[in-house]
């Protein structure tokens, strides 16, 4: 099992407001899990907690990632062990080229695996492969990280980074928000190009539409900080048809 989340409880550090209320989730290598749910259910919180954002405090439960206690690791350590978060709102980093940024990140991951670092030229070759694979613009590397990028370009840049870092687990935090149909399709194509038996995805989304392009193996509904229903792809279609009302009614007082 790649990821084993047991009874995870977490609150917002500052206000001590409880968001995750005993969440359970198991992800095996090669699987794609979709997490859906109404606003405020805790979807983004789950992504942030797994990535190690300090705004949230874990109050109970455990998370096992590839045989290690994930909650014990710093964010950069989690990243080096193969956990990747595609942000809902990727930030800009002026003055730092995509090239420098990614070369530093790639080498940090390689260092963790005991592999030699890539120098500028090796990295260029390596990056070129991925640029072609994802059909990105050639000048991407020279540009500063996300500076002047449109919403769609930022999301695609994240996918490009995913391709370079070759993570074991990719958490996509509402990647579809703010994207038009074409951008959505491009992002989905990128993700699909990276699917492999060694790689798992947790796709957090509001809408079913993304799941037409990235077909999940499992679909979960997150409500009130825990997973209240799980199923296959047909669950997503069911939600599209009926909305979250029924599920909310069933679990409101749970």
């Amino acid at each position, binding site marked *: 099992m790649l990821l084993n989340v047991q009874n995870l409880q977490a609150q917002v*550090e*500052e*206000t001590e407001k409880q968001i995750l209320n005993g969440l359970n989730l198991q992800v095996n290598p090669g699987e794609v899990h979709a997490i859906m749910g109404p606003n405020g259910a805790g979807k983004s919180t789950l992504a942030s907690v797994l*990535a*190690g*954002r*300090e*705004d949230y405090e874990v109050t109970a439960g455990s998370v096992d990632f590839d045989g290690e206690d994930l909650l014990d690791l*710093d*964010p*950069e350590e*989690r*990243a*080096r062990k193969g956990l*990747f*978060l595609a*942000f809902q709102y*990727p*930030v*800009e*980093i*002026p*003055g*730092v*080229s995509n090239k*420098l*940024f*990614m070369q*530093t*990140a790639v080498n*940090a*991951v390689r260092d*963790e695996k005991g592999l030699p670092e890539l120098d500028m030229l090796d990295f260029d070759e390596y990056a070129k492969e991925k640029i072609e694979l994802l059909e990105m613009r050639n000048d991407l590397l020279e540009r*500063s990280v996300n500076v002047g990028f449109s919403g769609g370009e930022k999301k695609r840049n994240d996918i490009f*980074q995913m391709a370079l*870092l070759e993570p074991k687990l990719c958490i996509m935090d509402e990647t579809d928000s703010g994207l038009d149909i074409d951008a959505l399709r491009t992002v989905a194509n990128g993700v699909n190009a990276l699917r492999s038996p060694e790689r798992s995805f947790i796709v957090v989304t509001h809408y079913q539409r993304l799941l037409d392009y990235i077909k999940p193996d499992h679909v979960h509904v997150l409500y009130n900080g825990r997973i209240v229903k799980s199923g296959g792809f047909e669950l997503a279609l069911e939600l599209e048809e009926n909305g979250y009302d029924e599920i909310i009614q069933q679990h409101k007082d749970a």
Partner: protein
Amino acid sequence: METVETEYQEINDLLAKNKHYREGFETKTKVETFDKGINEDVVRAISAKKNEPEWMLDFRLKAFRHWEKMQEPHWAKAKYTPLDYQDYSYYSAPECGACGDACATEGDNATAIDPEVAKAFAALGVPIEDGEANIAVDAIFDSISVSTTKREELEKHGIIFCSFSEAVHDHPELVQQYIGTVVPYHDNYFAALNSAVASDGTFVYIPPGVRCPMDLSTYFRINEAKTGQFERTILIADKGSYVSYLEGCSAPVRDSYQLHAAVVEVIVHEDAEVKYSTVQNWYPGDDDCEGGILNFVTKRGVCEGANSKLSWTQAETGSAITWKYPSCILKGDNSIGEFYSVALTNRRQQADTGTKMIHIGKNTRSTVISKGLSAGKSDNTYRGQVKILPSAEGARNFTQCDSMLIGDQCGAHTFPYIEVENASAMVEHEATTSRIGEDQLFYCQQRGISEQDAISMIVNGFCKEVFSELPLEFAQEAEELLAISLEGSVG
């Protein structure tokens, strides 16, 4: 509202921690220090100590009498309590050097140097004996120069590289010809004070057509408490010559303010070029900047001849308050002035720095690239003047001043003054402000980059343009300094 506060709390906490100022040690050695206080007798005593000729004493006295009539300025965007000038000593030197400069700066004779002083410079990594390093060094300890290396080698090229005190004795005609011509004693309060009590500094003269074969440098070390350091440097590049000059400095940890009021005059003649680089790492003080250096400096160069060029490059990371505007007066036709600066302020440091580019000749060009980094509760101000006089036909200026804020309690300010009196001028001004926030750091961390490396990467990316202008050794040092100044607080 609360979530916005927490976003920066971490960064602020991290950056508020005490950094270890490696250069903060104090050297205990026999020194001769004048009693505190400043008056005409003290000025005469300083001049006597240095065995100065009449004309130099006159220069000092004229300046002192003028200074007495002036008011301490407070127009900079930097608050400081008015100084009690009677509470400082205006001369301090290691005892064996107290007989004047003669024995202390006897070229390569290192035995004349007080061993404790020598140790201090060794700890600072400043080579004060002629050795492998392809760089000439003038080492200044409080009020005097204790060693100037590589002089014989330089003399072969006709290059004069000695302490200011020595130049007054050995090259009086040159000193008299140039002193006060670029920064007259009445220019400003601190220039007047400096002209009265100038301690020591460096004198450089590059003869016509000579390309100085090595970098020349001065390292200033303030040691004695409650003394002011008033160095005076004159650098002259005669026709068709070239020199690259580097300045470094540091001071021990103290608990009351220390004053550093320097004057630097640079004269660049026809077809000559001077590259003047400074890495400033004065003690910034404790968390509240108490005890830090007040760095009030007047640096100015005149591009006297046609096709002359002067570049100022600076990395300022220390001082409680930095107040300086290295400037270029572009008199010669086709002359070029450049200013590349990175100024970092952290904790409660304050910096009001920038440049003045005065265009007088025809087809003159100036470039200003200023990068201000503020962190902690500091305030960083860029103040620049681009003045195009009516005679400056075809003048061009490009100014870019960028500010980066780290955390949410610091400030960045810009005061550009652009005065154009010739219609053929082209003046461009760009300014950007950006912030390093928790979000950016987390983004980097989530890609496997540690917080320290992330800050370093972002800051270096920001300063890249300026660092590439620094001489190699300095560029490395500046990057490290920046990293330490910001990083000493991370973890």
